[in-house]
């Protein structure tokens, strides 16, 4: 598409679909997906969907916002948006992120260094609206025009003015869901501006002021979690049933019979899983239970509302929902009187509760939180488990770095030390560690399955990760070699699951994804049968 059709003026005023994606322009993938016809297809949006929902950005839908029918409705929506915009720059309403937002608004030098770092922008073949600064530029103009004193006058002189129209607001609403908030862009910015932050702040205007957000994050996400106990919809009774079932399954798989500690007051550790694991990847919490039991760790699980589901989707769209969930996590720990909370394999839960909630939890709610990666390293290095790495010798492994845990928290080495202790055939992707690429499912994308959005995720936001995986295994890409992408994060696993399925990666190349603890248990000599069931995926 030509750039001159996606200027900010077009964005604000041009009716109809602004951008048509052209898969032929997406960056090519390595073999065996080096022919475009082997890639998953991008399904067009149905005529009905197009008519019903706002989709004039790129014809991809996440928000599913019904088109307003009258001019009056549109005007009201724009006014609401502008009222949210103003609140974003108020100390009381946005003390949580005012300073970093202000810095990004004021000091970006428009050097475009960040563009090269963005997987979404580059993999899409440089679709201009996906450029990291595109949405920031719009927000900056809105800030200069509608928030700053004398804005309309000065912005006009400098050329930074913008007119808030419903066309613009509706497109911006969708555009705020075309960024994974991986913050690779921010890492390369010489000024320290942060376009990932801008994405989240935009989502906050829509959610906190206008009540517009993604159903999987809000209505079926944090709201269900706070009301029922888990965003999966699993209430405490169903959760306890589930645990009983998993205890039996562990016995079947390993001949180890033991009760999982539940609501044990005074335990040293409260272990919290992403509850999605119990349903989608039960082998992961099972492996944790096996390791902790074998290592004699004094821990407990909780059956308290929210205390058994570490997810906190607010971290992607809403500060208030974020704070509500974080407080519930802390409350569960406080009730049990544990010394610390340990987060199992979930990246965003790590960052949400350990880092971001660090400035929400005060006094008795400020219970120390730590990563399971460090605890696992301690367990593995202490020799408390009998491990034989050669039991994993038929598998070549690589490590996917979840952005939230790695680039945004600095937990890089412990998971590698553990993996190297149980895998003799480990290789690193390029780039890795804090310079990794997102799985494509960041910022809530992994759980967003509406309309044609999964096609976009598979083809665009996950593409850089797909390339990395194909490249790291390129010399053994044939199905005769077993390959394992170790992703210690439920969200990343969800994204990889869908991406692998859409490309047929397991069938064509024998690449499996999974967590870290499964590989550890697979290497435990006291368990006879292999723990990783390769054919079941």
């Amino acid at each position, binding site marked *: 598409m030509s750039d001159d059709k996606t200027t900010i003026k077009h964005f604000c005023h041009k009716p109809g679909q602004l951008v048509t994606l052209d898969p032929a322009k997406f960056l090519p993938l390595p073999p065996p997906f080096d022919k475009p016809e082997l890639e998953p297809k991008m399904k067009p949006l149905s005529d009905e969907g197009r008519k019903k929902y706002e989709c004039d950005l790129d014809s991809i839908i996440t928000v599913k916002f019904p088109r307003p029918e009258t001019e009056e409705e549109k005007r009201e929506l724009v006014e609401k948006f502008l009222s949210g915009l103003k609140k974003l720059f108020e100390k009381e309403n946005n*003390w949580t992120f005012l300073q*970093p937002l*202000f810095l990004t608004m004021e*000091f970006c030098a428009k050097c475009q260094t960040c563009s090269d770092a963005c997987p979404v922008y580059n993999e899409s073949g440089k679709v201009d609206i996906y450029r990291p600064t595109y949405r920031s530029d719009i927000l900056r103009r809105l800030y200069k025009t509608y928030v700053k004193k004398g804005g309309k006058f000065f912005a006009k002189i400098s050329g930074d003015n913008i007119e808030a129209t419903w066309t613009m607001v509706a497109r911006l609403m969708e555009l705020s869901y075309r960024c994974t908030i991986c913050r690779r862009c921010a890492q390369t910015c010489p000024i320290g501006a942060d376009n990932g932050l801008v994405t989240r702040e935009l989502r906050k205007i829509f959610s906190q002021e206008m009540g517009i957000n993604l159903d999987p994050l809000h209505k079926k996400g944090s709201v269900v979690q706070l009301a029922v106990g888990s965003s999966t919809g699993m209430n405490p009774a169903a959760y306890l049933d589930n645990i009983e079932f998993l205890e039996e399954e562990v016995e079947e798989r390993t001949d180890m019979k033991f009760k999982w500690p539940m609501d044990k007051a005074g335990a040293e550790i409260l272990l919290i899983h992403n509850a999605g694991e119990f349903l989608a990847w039960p082998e992961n919490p099972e492996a944790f239970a096996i390791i902790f039991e074998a290592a004699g760790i004094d821990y407990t699980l909780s059956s308290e509302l929210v205390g058994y589901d570490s997810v906190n989707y607010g971290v992607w769209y809403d500060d208030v929902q974020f704070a*509500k969930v974080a407080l519930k996590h802390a409350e569960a720990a406080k009730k049990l009187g544990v010394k610390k909370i340990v987060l199992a394999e979930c990246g965003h839960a790590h960052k949400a509760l350990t880092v*971001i909630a660090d400035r929400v939890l005060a006094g008795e709610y400020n219970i120390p939180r*730590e990563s399971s990666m460090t605890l696992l390293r301690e367990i593995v290095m202490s020799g408390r488990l009998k491990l034989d790495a050669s039991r994993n010798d038929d598998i070549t492994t690589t490590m996917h770095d979840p952005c939230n845990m790695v680039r945004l928290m*600095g937990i*890089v080495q412990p998971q590698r030390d553990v993996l190297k202790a149980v895998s003799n055939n480990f290789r690193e992707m390029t780039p890795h560690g*804090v310079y990794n690429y997102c799985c494509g499912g960041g910022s809530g994308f992994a759980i967003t399955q509406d309309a044609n959005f999964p096609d976009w995720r598979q083809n665009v936001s996950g593409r850089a990760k797909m390339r990395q995986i194909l490249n790291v295994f390129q010399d053994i890409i044939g199905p005769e070699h077993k390959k394992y992408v170790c992703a210690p994060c439920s969200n990343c696993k969800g994204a990889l699951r869908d991406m692998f399925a859409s490309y047929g990666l397991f069938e064509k190349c024998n690449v499996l994804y999974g967590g870290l603890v499964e590989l550890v248990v697979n290497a435990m000599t006291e368990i006879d049968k292999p723990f990783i069931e390769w054919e079941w995926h």
Partner: protein
Amino acid sequence: MGGFTVLQLLFYLSLLVFVIAMIMKALKISNMPLHLRWDLYPIPHEKGKAKYGGSYFEETDWWIKPKEISIANEIKEMGKEIIFVHSLMQNNRPLWVFSFPFHFGMYLLIGFVVMLALGAILEISGTTVSAASASGLVVIVHYLTVVLGIAGWILASFGALGLLLSRMFNGDLRKVSVRADYFNLVLLLAIFAIGLVSCFAFDTPNADLRGFVGSLISFEPAGVLPIATAIQLWLMAILLVYLPFTHMAHFLGKYFTYHKVRWEDAANLRGNKIEAAVKEGLDYQINWSASHIKSGGTWAEAATEESSKDE
């Protein structure tokens, strides 16, 4: 007072505006409430871990272990960034080719102004600054002024011209640029280019500028200046007034983006300053309008509201 030139008065005024506006901006930013953590790794003060981007979260029981901080490494990273614009060198070499001389040239020019001021003070006290002076110190001031001036004008002019041309002819930059972006670079280029040309066109370019600086220091009327130098000084006065209100003040902004956001990893421990700031934040009134937010009360109340009736 009656003998002051308009330019002199303007310069006093613009210097005043510059200083006050920069101080106010710095105060505005630093008085903003403590934000939620938004770290970005690598963080250079993480001793032994910075080279691969690790943090204290890699330790079990990190909150009771002494935090291992390397100030030296942080200073080294800052030095690389300030002197060499290192992140641009790593991530955007085509622009760095101009940005580095542009910034480095300006550092040299700051040194040049310091030398002019030093020379002016010497002259006010009766010592003529020239290569022929009997005092070694005066000779050093003379030559440093000459060298810093010429090198500074050359590098800064080259950089500003390169940045301006990049913005005009590089499609990626052109499409994000507005009038003000071109104006900033044209203004800077004009100031630098006049300085550069003056070095070769005038007999005593530095003496003229030194005389003007001296008049500002001594509150004495300035002498007559060559027209080009007068224009240059007018433009500088405009720049001083204008700069604090633009992204060109990023030399200030960068302190905050790096030290108060990216590298800000101080933990909230019971009873420390952060905990007090968090409590203050939770006490702010919240006024968002979405129905899932209990507005009108404090953040603490909104965050602890029973949630079953949420939409």
